[in-house]
């Protein structure tokens, strides 16, 4: 594929777009992994949200277990 005399501008435009989108995708994926880790950590310590406590009251740990 011949990009002509302005090949540098064309390649730079595609490279910059790919870089920005890669950063965006990487950030969203990395944040998702970090959030899931934090959530799993809370759950392993028996900390659940109030709505979860209500849903499965006999099974889940309550705030009392944290004290």
């Amino acid at each position, binding site marked *: *594929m*011949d*990009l*002509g*005399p*302005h*090949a540098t*501008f*064309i390649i*730079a*435009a*595609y490279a*910059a*777009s790919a870089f*920005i*989108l890669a*950063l*965006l*995708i990487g*950030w*969203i*994926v990395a*944040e*998702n992994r970090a*959030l*899931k880790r*934090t*959530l799993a950590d*809370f759950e392993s310590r028996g*900390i*659940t*949200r*109030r709505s979860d406590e209500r849903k499965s009251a006999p099974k889940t740990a309550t*705030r*009392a277990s*944290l*004290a």
Partner: protein
Amino acid sequence: MALIDLANPTRFLSLSGRVLPWLAAATALCFAFGFWLTAGAPDDYQQGATVKIMFIHVPSAWLAMLGWTVMTIAALGTLVWRHPLADMAGKAAAPIGAAFTLICLITGSLWGRPMWGTYWVWDARLTSVFVLFLMYLGVIVLWRTIDDPTRAGRAAAILTLVGAINIPIIKFSVDWWNTLHQPASVVKMSGPAIHSSILVPLLVMAIAFTLLFFTLHLAAMRNEILKRRIRSMQLLQAEAAPGR
């Protein structure tokens, strides 16, 4: 399932978790097809091969405006209907819209240098898109400044609604003012002014960019729900801490 059922974050997480892999696959396929068409598209008789920049510049410009439109609808959801997911949708769309606006500005600048002889001019189209980028940054900063998500959501929603006035300004800036930027050549009353050999790759790339936007938006909204869950757990932990 009724649409209103999606207002429940748990149901939204479950449904979006099933949809997301398919949406990501469709995005990848569409990009592969779009790049294949782009590589085979002919050079423009005036602009030569630089017309290839259009295949990323124009879709990113459309997505920059679509991002703010999505945020505006979400802002109405926050302020009028107090929809549980509305402010999460608005917050999730802001960085994605900002990224597409930045791509639009950079690719436009790199296209402008060989065609106009300059990277930048302060004409109405370029300036209004730059203002859109600053508004995206403003909304992102506002979200990060206010701790309480409900208060932050309302403040960001108001800013979003005020900023929505910029969208028609961007669209019609080339008609209302004398600009260096060319007028609309795809979305116009008399139909597209581009030959199908260039129009088809452009539209396929636009579909690919749109699919990417919604894939990332869905993923970012899921992250936002997880963040709120973690926040409520942290509050619960703080309440239960000894000495309270």
